[in-house]
């Protein structure tokens, strides 16, 4: 567990979602979600479209009413509080600035609605303009700003009334890659500086990894994985998360004895897994970059160390991707695997070569329950 997460885990709970449901007719958009959001954390809802992440955010904002369940902020129910009294900040995907107002008046809007004095409003708006570095654009209309500038105005408008929770619904989705990465860095610094609780929705896993302290992975209206990006990636709680985050190799095995399993007639060592009985089917998952592909000569030079597995395979394709290279291989039993290595390490094999694929036993996750659809990419939507 990383240091950041330990910090967050020590914090107190700010928002609690308890058995939250949202049904549209027979369709469960959000299916019995329970979640604690820590005070001051950056939490991301990650999932494909239709996975329930945006509906959950909408219920937090108050634009959707839960079919059942509770939303608590510091123990007080929010369900019957209308959105304009929730004191929550929100940044929308399409910026949603008021087109007829200047940048300054957009940012001042929440304060004017709260009937603050004009001197106080001016002071706070100036501070916000400075925070998002838009002082020189104060008198422009939103239409005269670039997408990135508009989104900074939207962030300033959402922060100016000092809400404790900031909701962000795919706020960078409409921007190009370079600008998105710049704003991600700004956002991370802003979060560190202000200590505000941010709940962020995205379908972009790299963005989720870059920004968040914790990620909640949504699929079919449920949270199927919750933890730091590091933990979810290195030790996915289930085959769906393993396949959804990054790339993965799945090997179908049959457990034989404690800590061992049969794969295509060969014996492999597996992690000790509770609830795994002899003769039970199981799945082991190896990340492509945790696997090594060795030519026959290399393999004879370097005997298999203790705590490693090895299977024979034939090279199908070698791809050069810049900083890394991948090698697709197929085992004798027809299982396809991908091995990934940094280009600097070199990958001297050719299609058709026989290789030995090796990995550390402890690096491979073992799953006893899974659905076939979990193993294909982008299966999170309804």
């Amino acid at each position, binding site marked *: 567990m990383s240091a950041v997460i330990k910090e967050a885990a020590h914090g107190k709970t700010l928002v609690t979602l308890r058995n939250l449901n949202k049904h549209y007719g027979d369709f469960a958009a959000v299916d019995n979600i329970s979640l604690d959001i820590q005070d001051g954390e950056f939490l991301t809802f990650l999932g494909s479209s239709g996975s329930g992440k945006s509906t959950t955010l909408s219920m937090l*904002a108050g634009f959707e009413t839960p079919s059942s369940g509770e939303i608590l902020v510091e123990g007080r129910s929010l369900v019957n509080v209308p*959105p304009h*009294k929730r004191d929550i900040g929100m940044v929308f995907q399409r910026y*949603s600035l008021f087109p007829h107002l200047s940048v300054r008046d957009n940012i001042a*809007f*929440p304060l004017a*609605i709260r009937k603050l004095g004009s001197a106080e409003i001016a002071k706070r708006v100036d501070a916000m303009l400075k925070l998002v570095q838009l002082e020189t654009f104060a008198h422009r209309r939103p*239409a005269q700003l670039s997408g990135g500038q508009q989104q900074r105005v939207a962030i300033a408008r959402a922060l100016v*009334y000092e809400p404790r929770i900031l909701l962000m619904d795919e706020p960078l989705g409409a921007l190009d890659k370079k600008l998105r990465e710049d704003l991600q860095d700004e956002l991370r610094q802003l979060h560190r500086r202000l200590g505000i609780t941010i709940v962020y929705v995205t379908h972009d896993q790299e963005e989720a990894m870059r920004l968040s302290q914790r990620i909640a992975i949504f699929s079919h209206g449920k949270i199927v994985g919750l933890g730091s990006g590091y933990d979810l990636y290195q030790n996915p709680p289930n085959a769906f998360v393993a396949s959804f985050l990054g790339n993965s190799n799945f090997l179908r095995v049959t457990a034989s004895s404690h800590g061992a399993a049969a794969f295509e007639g060969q014996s492999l060592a597996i992690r000790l897994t509770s609830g795994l009985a002899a003769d039970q089917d199981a799945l082991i998952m190896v990340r492509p970059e945790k696997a090594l592909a060795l030519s026959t000569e290399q393999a004879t030079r370097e005997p298999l160390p203790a705590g490693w597995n090895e299977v024979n395979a034939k090279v199908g394709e070698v791809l050069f991707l810049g900083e890394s290279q991948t090698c697709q291989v197929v085992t004798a039993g027809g299982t396809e695997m991908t091995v990934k290595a940094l280009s600097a390490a070199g990958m001297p094999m050719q299609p058709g070569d026989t290789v030995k694929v090796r990995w550390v036993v402890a690096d491979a996750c073992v799953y006893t329950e899974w659905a076939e659809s979990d193993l294909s990419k982008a299966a999170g939507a309804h």
Partner: protein
Amino acid sequence: MLLSPNAMGRPLRTGLYLTTGIIAAFLLLPVVFIVLLSFGSSQWLVFPPPGWTFKWYDQFFSNPEWMDAALASLKVAVLTTFAAVALGLPTAFALVRGRFPGRELLYGLFTMPMIVPLVIIAVAVYALFLKLGYTGTLFAFVVSHVIVALPFTIISIINSLKLFDQSIEDAAVICGASRLQAIVKVTFPAIRPGMIAGGLFAFLVSWDEVVLSVMMASPDLQTLPVKMWTTLRQDLSPVIAVASTLLIGLSILVMFIASALRRRNETNA
């Protein structure tokens, strides 16, 4: 594109321009004729006019009957405009934002006066107001005109409301504004061009409406088109051409305003 003017051959293009010109002339000629005749010196509406004069304009503006009719028309049109916008605004919101069964049906109902023959509406409204004793009142004129003007107003407001990104209104709500405050402070300014265009349409519908107005009119209260209609049946005075010119003039002015507003809205969006 298959039918781009640049891609088609020269003969085809010439033919297209010619047809367009003939259609435009066919539509515009009566208007041009009537405007010219209003300045013609012959009292028999002879074309080409033997000479030019302003005397029919003098007659029009010095005749209290014509002036009363013009004033009544203006009054009815302005009241119709405001009533149509006031009723059309909530209707458009309900039809765009509402999630209730029968919404499509209701939309059909509200736009039906555009398809139903005017004379049928006129007879129905006449029968009702006759029974209630409202015929010949300003109220009857405005109500009957609102019935036929409302579809145009509703469609115009619906169009701008559909183009409006509702998350902007949601943003105002999450910023602390109640739904009503958000609509008034954010949504209304954004759809204002649609509201104004809808109002101008209502004005135009009322301004040249004759079928309903003939039914609603009384000797004390009649609109300009009704006065033209009744005068026409007695004699063919060039003063009618003057009234026509004024009707056309104001209609063109209103259309210019509407298109200028639309253009400004497009450059803003």
